[in-house]
Every structure is written in structure tokens, then in C-alpha cells.
């Protein structure tokens, strides 16, 4: 009984631990900056031994953003109010997605940010100068092993996110984004136009639309992760797939469901792959290939994948 009482005490201590309004307002400030500011800058993305430099420009008045990878092939992504266009000069393909994330899932709105605090202990860290900006660190420490931790560094003045570090349970860095140069303001419409004349390129349009994927569900949901969208879409050139997304407000995990034919079964590799903070788990269920993709620890991605089940309607 003593053990049970100790457990109860731990639970009560967790419930009583409130996040300070000041800390939560920092998240809100970062969110507002990402929605309102105009800026242009260079940042480095590091993942394991690899690093890659990109330029990002946001034209606030038109809500348009352009990302250009500066190393290797000049891959580019332009996001407007409605669409995300990904230009791949190597294969001369434009991939077109509907824009959704920051509008549909404002996890950082004041009434939602409290939910984040259920799964993360949110606190302030040190202040540090990054790319010439005096930044405040905001630390998000997961309350269980089902999500990663984050160290965010935001400009004290504007709220602009200068650096974001993803860490695992042992505190090891898994990936990080860090600006090396940034200027806020003074962005014109021309600066967010694509440099590619892609009129002859192949266009892969996702054609995503909300849908009920009849018969498909999870036998057990992952604590804290809720279904946020369910849709039918195209993936790549022609494949028609179902996509269901689960999120805890900060991390997201997508489940892709696509019918298997002989050729696809031949190419399918069942198991777990990792790309930086992203894990990809592939398995077969009811003659379909299930691919689960998420910026979450392997255990979370695998648990969602193993819970996918099909019950004929």
C-alpha cells in the first residue's frame, strides 16, 4: 500500500505543477512571430554528422514563404496562403500540397497551450546571443518517453525563433535548426518568387480531401496523441493513399495506408527506418502497406503502427 500511496503522491505533484503564464506566453510570442514577421536569413540544419545550409524568406504582407537549399541541388519550397509547392530540379518535378498545418492546428493558441503542458514540462532556460540576437531559451521536457524534448531560442524583442534543438530522453541532440544570419523586415514580393522556370516540369498534385477511411482504426491510441485529420490524397506521381494524422500539439505522427499489389509488395521493406528526428515504420495489414511517419521516438511510431487494424464494415 505504501508504494501505491507514493504513486498517488507523485501523480498529485504532477497535477499540481502549473506552467507559469510567462513561459506559455513565450510560445505564443514565437507563434505570432512566425505568422506576422517579414524576414530573410540563412540557417543550418544539422542531423547526425550531416549539415545543410538553406535560405528562408518570409513576405509578411502576402503571407508567402520561400525556402531554398543552398548546398547541392537548388531544391526550393514556396508556400502561399493556399498551397505548398516543392521544386525538385533534379527530377524536374513540382510537388503541390494544400497548406494546412499552422491554420488547422493552432496548438499554440492560448486556450490550447495548456494542453501542451499536459505532456511537456515547459520552462525558461538561459539567455544566449545567436546570430546577433539576444535570445531566451524555452525548454519543453516531455513527461514520458513517447515524445522528444525541445530547446527553443527566441529573439527577446520580436519572438522570432533563432534556434530549435530536438533532444532525446538522454538529452542527446537529434537534430537542430540554427540561424547564422537573419534580418527582420525589408522583404519584397519578388524575394519570395521561385527561381525555377518550371513550366515544363511534371506536376504531382496531392489532391488531398477529407475522408473517412472505412474500416481502419487504431486498436489503442498513444497517450496524448489525438487524431487531427483523416484524408485521401495522392502520393508521388499516381499512388492513391489514405492519411491519418495524430498529434500531441507539438509532435505529429502520420499513418499512410495504401493497397498492395505484387510489385509494391516486392519493393516493400518491413521494419523501422530513421531520418534525423523522424522515424518511419512499415508493415502490412489486410493486404495494405501501412507506413507510419513521425517526428517522435521509435517506440511511439512503432506503437501506432502496431495498433493499426482493419475491420471490414
Amino acid at each position, binding site marked *: *500500500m505504501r*508504494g*501505491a500511496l507514493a*504513486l498517488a503522491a*507523485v*501523480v498529485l505533484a*504532477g*497535477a499540481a505543477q502549473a506552467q507559469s503564464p510567462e513561459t506559455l506566453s513565450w510560445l505564443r510570442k514565437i*507563434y505570432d512571430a*512566425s*505568422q506576422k514577421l517579414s524576414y530573410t536569413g540563412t540557417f543550418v*540544419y544539422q542531423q547526425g554528422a*550531416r549539415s*545543410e545550409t538553406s535560405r*528562408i524568406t*518570409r513576405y509578411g504582407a502576402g503571407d508567402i*514563404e*520561400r*525556402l531554398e537549399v543552398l548546398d*547541392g*541541388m537548388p531544391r526550393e*519550397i514556396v*508556400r502561399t496562403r493556399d498551397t505548398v509547392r*516543392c521544386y*525538385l*530540379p*533534379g527530377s524536374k518535378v513540382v*510537388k503541390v*500540397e494544400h497548406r494546412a*498545418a*499552422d491554420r*488547422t*492546428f*493552432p*496548438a499554440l493558441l492560448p486556450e490550447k497551450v495548456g494542453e501542451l503542458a*499536459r505532456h511537456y514540462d515547459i520552462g525558461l532556460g538561459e539567455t544566449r546571443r545567436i546570430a546577433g540576437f539576444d535570445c531566451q531559451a524555452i525548454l519543453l521536457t516531455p*513527461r*514520458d518517453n513517447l515524445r522528444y524534448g525541445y530547446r527553443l531560442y527566441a529573439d527577446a524583442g520580436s519572438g522570432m*525563433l533563432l534556434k530549435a534543438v530536438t533532444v532525446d530522453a538522454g538529452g542527446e541532440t537529434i537534430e537542430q535548426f540554427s540561424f547564422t544570419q537573419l534580418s527582420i523586415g525589408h522583404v519584397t514580393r519578388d524575394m519570395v518568387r521561385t527561381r525555377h522556370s518550371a513550366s515544363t516540369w511534371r506536376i504531382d498534385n496531392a489532391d488531398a480531401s477529407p475522408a473517412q477511411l472505412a474500416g481502419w482504426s487504431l486498436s489503442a491510441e498513444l*497517450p*496524448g496523441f489525438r487524431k487531427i485529420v483523416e484524408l485521401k490524397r495522392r502520393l*508521388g506521381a499516381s499512388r492513391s493513399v489514405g492519411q491519418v494524422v495524430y498529434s500531441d500539439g507539438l*509532435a*505529429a505522427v*502520420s499513418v*499512410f495506408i495504401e493497397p498492395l499489389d505484387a510489385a509494391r509488395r516486392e*519493393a516493400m521493406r*518491413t*521494419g*523501422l*527506418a530513421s*531520418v534525423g528526428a*523522424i522515424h*518511419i*515504420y*512499415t508493415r502490412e495489414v489486410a493486404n495494405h502497406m501501412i*507506413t507510419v*511517419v*513521425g517526428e517522435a521516438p521509435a517506440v511511439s511510431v512503432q506503437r501506432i503502427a*502496431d495498433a493499426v487494424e482493419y475491420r471490414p464494415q
Partner: protein
Amino acid sequence: MKERISALMDGELDEREAAEAIAALTDDARARGAWRTYHLIGDALREGRWVVAPRRPAANAPFWRIALPAIAVAAAVALVSWVAFVPVQHNTPAPPTSVAQAPVTVPPPRAANDYLLAHQGFSPRVALQGMAAYVRTVSDPAEEPRR
């Protein structure tokens, strides 16, 4: 008297002791309460239900030697499963997973960037850092070989 009631239930009293205990049950409201409580506990244990344990009984009550630890375990299990469903967890282990075995490690699928691009649009990270989060979706040198 509670010990006597417990012993009566377990059939451990001789004829005279049993008669005294039964007489006590007739006269004594507290003894009747104990009799009812013990039966409720016995029923609950047989049916797999959990009950609130009354005060710790005397050491010479065989029924209790089995029942108390069982109830304590049941209560602890109840608490643990309650803990598992409380959204605010602090330093509590994750609920046991049904997938204990380590997964097979494979290289990322050929269409990994298609999946990443499709997934990225729904990642709340985009709301924090805008397009910078998308760099993952075009950072795989395998799909876009360098010149």
C-alpha cells in the same frame, strides 16, 4: 470478536465456540457488521471485484492472511491503471507496450521524401518555425543527387 467471526467463516471453531460466535452475531451490531463485511470481501474476491479493505485484522485470521495482500495488490493495480489514464504524468513509467521486441531496422523507403512532404504539412512544428521545418523534406541527397 472479529477474529471469532473470521474463524467462524473459515470453519475453524468447535461447536461451543461457534455457538458463542453465532449468539454474538444475534446480539452485537458490530459483530453483524463484521460478518457482512467479511462476506462482501469473500464474494468480491471470488467475483474478481475490488473492495475497500477494513482495518488490518489479527494475525491469527487465516482468511485475512490471504485476503489482505490480495486486496492490497488489487488496489495497487487499480491505482496504477488509473495513473496510466491520468493525462498529467510526472516521472511515471509509460504504460506497458504490447510491442516488446526490437523492430527490424531498414533503410528509409525510396519514396521517403513523398511521405515526409505529405506529413510535414500537418506538423505543429511549422507553426513555430514556419518553412524551416520543411527542410527535412528536401534534405535527402538520395532523391536529389548532387551534381
